[in-house]
């Protein structure tokens, strides 16, 4: 139960963090689905590197955190791209 909550928390943290928000924003900048997914995935990869861990401890970022962050980034990028397709003519 706690492990599921842990995973849900990691996903929620990514959605409300850089991968979710910037991923959507970057996805909205292009009509190309692959570029959007790539940009979102890149943010998902960079986000734990830049913002992960903490200033006071030396705990490496886990593979799960990376996987969740990249997945959320890709989905957010695609969502942003869908918004662009639906809401813009350019």
């Amino acid at each position, binding site marked *: *139960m*706690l492990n599921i*909550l*842990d995973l*849900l*928390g*990691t996903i*929620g*943290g*990514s959605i*409300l*963090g850089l991968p979710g928000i910037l991923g959507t924003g970057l996805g909205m900048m292009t009509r190309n689905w692959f570029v959007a997914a790539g940009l979102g995935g890149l943010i998902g990869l960079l*986000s734990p590197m830049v*913002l*992960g*861990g*903490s200033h*006071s*401890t*030396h*705990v*490496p970022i*886990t593979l799960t955190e990376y996987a969740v962050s990249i997945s959320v980034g890709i989905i957010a990028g695609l969502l942003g791209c869908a918004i662009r397709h*639906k*809401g813009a*003519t350019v």
Partner: protein
Amino acid sequence: MSDKENTPRPGLLRRLWRAFWSPSGVLSTGFLLIAGFICGILFWGGFHWSLELTNTEEFCTSCHTMETNLGEYRETVHYNNHSGVRAICSDCHVPHEWQYKMKAKIMAVKDVYHEVLGTISTPEKYEERRLEMAAAVWKKMKASDSRECRNCHAFEYMDFTIQETRAADNHQRAIDEGMTCIDCHQGIAHDLPPGYLEEYEHVVEELAGEVRYRGEEDLAGIRSYLGTAAD
């Protein structure tokens, strides 16, 4: 009669959906950008403000089940001390880093769920679950290298010359052996249940099996310390 007149009027939700995705004929791009920016600030500010409200001691202890924790915490140095500097619930249980803070908030939904279910609603039920709850927190703290403790306490800035000899010795040993705060400081704010040392050892072993987060981690050292403390 034209086809347009024969077409039934779409429902409210469909009309709202269409209006949402239609280009604005009356608002300029600049207006939309500025309005969107201001709305963004208001929304984010409101979200963050609400989130900070859930970090207050009043919020944390507003549930009936938190009364036991509160009573125990009030007897500790983190609540009342000579300097007046305090650590409230969120200082120890909610990370400062955004993504981990969000994770903690999402995971805290289980507290509301168990409050509603009444899982620890009586002193007997609370005591029955105390070890399990403590172990969950220890696991989190051990896995994060006591991140929340280290927001205030840092080995780097400890003056061992003004610490008690025993504390200074053990802190220097902790540095040498790569130990973390929770390895020794269980029960710093809440009462310890019987069998806590065995349970903590179990937590350490479980985590050592899952992840090795520090090269210098010395499980045997922690075990020996726990053994010594138990004696």
